[in-house]
């Protein structure tokens, strides 16, 4: 069993609880143990780097130092914003050792930074470290019939110099993952357009306009649902969707799944544990595309289906 460090981020306890829960479920199934950083703090998100240069580095740095106290070489982060703040800080400090000493000794109490833990987004970890074959081998309930628009947003792949992952213009890692689950990924030109992020609260009209275009293009691509790997993208696309529909005078009806919810679904985990009830846009229409779902597939079908899935891979 592999063991990695896990940074859930604040939204894991709030708006993106379903992301956090399903990450834990699928990692267990994939034989990866998650070790949470003890007493982690908020990464500072957009606000710290908007308002203060020292805070922008100090807040993530405390977590990076705490992560080094655990014995793992990799840290995986589900939230795209936490991931980016952590990776920006790491990249910056790795290239400026003097600065890291400066911030670590004057601002952060927790000790010194050595730069020995790799920082990855959960999407990147699934794609690079676990791999498509291992994901495919755990599928017991194919998502065939479901068409999905994979939405990456800005922070998972940009800037390229920081993330070093996938394409900044037209990434495909999430598309490959959902196809490994049996679904069809649609051609979706707005997959890296910004959703408006924290303007959701401070300048809602901007989010209504930007997110509206993303929903429109996803619908046009023929998708039954959107798939995301970022809590803020999810809440803008899902929670604001009824408002956007009213504003644009159009019905989109596009549920917004976290990619790990779909992994758990395809791995045959009980639907009621995937927290679909938390979604504002109802998920039933999209789920109906994969046929009738067995209420207790875990107990009844798991052994038989697991063998089937494995033989498919070979």
């Amino acid at each position, binding site marked *: 069993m592999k063991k990695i460090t896990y940074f859930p981020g*604040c*939204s894991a*306890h*709030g*708006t993106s*609880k379903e992301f956090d829960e399903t990450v834990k479920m699928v990692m267990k199934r994939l034989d990866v143990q998650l070790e949470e950083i003890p*007493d*982690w*703090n*908020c990464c*500072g*998100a*957009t*606000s*710290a*780097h*908007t*308002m*203060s*240069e*020292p*805070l922008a580095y*100090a*807040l993530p740095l*405390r977590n990076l130092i705490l992560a080094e106290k655990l014995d793992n070489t990799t840290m995986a982060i589900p939230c795209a914003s936490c991931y980016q703040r952590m990776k920006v800080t790491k990249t910056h400090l790795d290239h400026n050792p003097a600065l890291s000493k400066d911030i670590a000794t*004057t*601002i*952060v*109490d*927790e000790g010194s930074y050595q730069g020995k833990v790799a920082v990855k987004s959960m999407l990147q970890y699934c794609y690079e470290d676990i791999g498509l074959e291992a994901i495919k081998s755990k599928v017991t309930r194919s998502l065939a019939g479901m068409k999905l628009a994979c939405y990456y947003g*800005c*922070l998972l792949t*940009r*800037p*390229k110099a920081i993330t070093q992952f996938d394409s*900044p*213009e037209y990434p495909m890692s999430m598309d490959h993952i959902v196809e490994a689950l049996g679904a069809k990924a649609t051609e979706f030109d707005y997959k*890296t*357009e*910004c959703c*408006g*992020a*924290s*303007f959701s*609260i*401070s*300048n*809602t009209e*901007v989010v209504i306009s*930007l997110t509206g275009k993303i929903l429109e293009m996803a619908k046009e691509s023929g998708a039954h649902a959107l798939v995301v790997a970022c809590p803020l993208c999810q*809440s803008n696309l899902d*929670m*604001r969707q009824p*408002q956007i529909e009213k504003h644009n005078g159009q019905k989109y009806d596009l549920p917004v799944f976290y990619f790990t919810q779909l992994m758990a679904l395809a791995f045959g985990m009980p639907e009621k544990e995937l927290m679909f*009830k*938390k*979604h*504002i846009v109802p998920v039933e229409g999209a789920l109906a595309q994969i046929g009738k779902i067995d209420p207790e597939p875990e107990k009844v079908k798991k052994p038989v289906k697991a063998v089937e899935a494995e033989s498919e891979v070979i």
Partner: protein
Amino acid sequence: MITLGTQEKNTFLADVNRRSGANVLECYQCGKCVSTCPVSGYMDFPPREIMQLIKLGQRNEVYMANSTWFCLTCSACSGRCPREIEIPSVMEAIRHMAIEEQYVNSSAKVRSIRKFHNIFLDMIRRYGRSYELRLMVEHNIRTRDLFKDVTLAPAALLKGKIPLLVKPVKSAQSIRRMFKQAEKLEKKQS
């Protein structure tokens, strides 16, 4: 009004380059950033014009523009810039400099954005973590827009989308010290 033809050395350009790590002089004004930027339509000066104003040493115009406050740091511009200039880093540097030198754009939209970030940081100072419900409520109170998103609240709260409480970090002292030290460093820089 923008006045050109200053004889002095362009210290503003040098300051921005130093703070951002970018070289603004590389910009040849192609405008690709403007067509790529999802929010250039909301800006007083879109990124291309900000770059030119920096080259012309127009410190006041750049600091007072809303542009840097609207930048979402999505990095779409820098990914497509043929000169590979880190435009978001430039936007960030001028924002930090404007804050440190106490330039304030008092338009309602910029005020709303600043309030949001200040409330957010205040929460981290207090709890070490963010607290979504309080953020939304406090922002409504402080922008005097009490009923904004009130129709979203029942569904979001009932579905457990937005939790009622936050679990603070244990090392609250160390977080508070971090904020104090950061403030000192900012003052030193300005």
